């Protein structure tokens, strides 16, 4: 190997090293963000449990009906697609968006009306490129979603549903299973599934003014909680996916550096050997 070639190898090692520094840093940042996201997801649990209890109590009443629980003939569906704001997270964005595209084309093939609410920049970009009918866009909210933002999204959905524009509302997001596994899921949000515990009885609880009114009044909070939880869940998944991706990238970089160093050292050794042979053969000739 020539000296010029050796310089190239040296330069490549340098460049891989600096890339590795970045991937290592991103991995650390993702780890700490993941921890915070997990805490947030955990903190949302009591809120959800309390709402769910109340709603399932109400639906245990045999006389109970609500426009939010009635199943309708499916003609139009609204999807809430939640993805990340940034890439470099392995298959995180593409997996969830692939599922969304699959669900949406399934319905459009049946000539049903489909619209989308996009949460996260990647989701907005994807749906725009595919030419889906977008009702609302919420880019750049994944990391710092406040309750007020979630409330806005919930209001939008409830309004569209109440007016009868859509017969069903589905949410597509990535759920955090473990640090190594994040699964894209599609869940039915509206109409609310039957959540009664099966024990049909008239409860002794006094509902003011009536069980139906309380139930319908709870729907905005329920949806807000659902959306908040899904975005937090999705964000935790994104960070976990990014951490894994960056860990792999760092490992690969390390391996590459090892190989390149080996190559470089061999070349250096070869050059020294060659020089030595040249010197010794020259001195032999001089004798």
């Amino acid at each position, binding site marked *: 190997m020539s000296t010029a070639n050796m310089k190239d190898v040296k330069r490549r090692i340098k460049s891989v090293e600096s890339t590795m520094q970045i991937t290592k840093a991103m991995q650390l940042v993702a780890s700490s963000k993941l921890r915070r996201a997990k805490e*947030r997801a955990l*903190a*949302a649990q*009591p*809120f*959800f449990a*309390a*709402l769910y209890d*109340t709603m399932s*109590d*109400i639906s245990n009443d045999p006389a109970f009906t609500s426009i939010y629980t009635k199943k309708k003939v499916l003609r139009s569906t609204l999807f809430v697609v939640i993805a990340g704001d940034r890439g470099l997270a392995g298959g995180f964005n593409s997996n969830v968006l692939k599922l969304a595209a699959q669900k949406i084309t399934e319905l459009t093939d049946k000539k049903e009306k489909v619209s989308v609410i996009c949460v996260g920049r990647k989701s907005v970009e994807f749906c725009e490129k595919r030419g889906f009918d977008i009702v609302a866009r919420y880019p750049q909210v994944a990391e710092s979603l406040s*309750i*007020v933002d*979630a*409330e*806005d999204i919930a*209001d939008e959905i409830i*309004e569209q549903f109440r007016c009868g524009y859509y017969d069903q509302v589905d949410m597509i997001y990535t759920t955090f299973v473990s640090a190594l596994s994040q699964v894209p899921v599609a869940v039915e949000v509206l109409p609310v599934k039957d959540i009664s515990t099966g024990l049909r009885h008239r*409860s*002794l*609880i*006094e*509902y*003011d*003014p009536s069980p139906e*009114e*309380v139930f319908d*009044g*709870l729907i*905005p*909070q329920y949806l*807000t*909680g659902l959306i*908040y*939880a899904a975005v937090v869940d999705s964000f935790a998944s994104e960070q976990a996916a990014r951490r894994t991706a960056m860990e792999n990238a760092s490992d690969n970089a390390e391996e590459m550096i090892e190989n390149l160093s080996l190559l470089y050292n061999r070349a250096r050794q070869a050059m020294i050997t060659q020089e030595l042979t040249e010197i010794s053969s020259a001195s032999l000739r001089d004798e």
Partner: protein
Amino acid sequence: MNTFKLRIITPDKVFYEGEAVSIIVKTAAGNIGILAGHTPYVANIVPSPLTVSENGTDSRVAAVSAGVVKVENGVVTVVTTAVEWAEDIDVSRAERSRERAERELAAQASDKEFRHAEQRLKRALNRLTVSGKH
């Protein structure tokens, strides 16, 4: 004084958990007071001041947004999307969001925007009322 267990829950945390003597919350029909031994009861609450008394003489006031209050087995649970103690309310922020909502209301936007602005105005006014700076 008889006390009951009170929990105030929001999506980001359990805001309050402890014993209380009485609370006053506002439902669609008006203010209701809850004392220990209340009958099982569930009602929606509207954005309003929530008064909590821990010993029967002093009371603390918090601004709550829409939610639900539930009394069951002697435990009172308030579930709401947002709640703040009066002393923690950022008055200038509430003032700003009130101004913004008023501007939007005056702009005569679409029905939907009008209702959104109205809701924001209600929340902002509620926070200002509770903080006592209005």
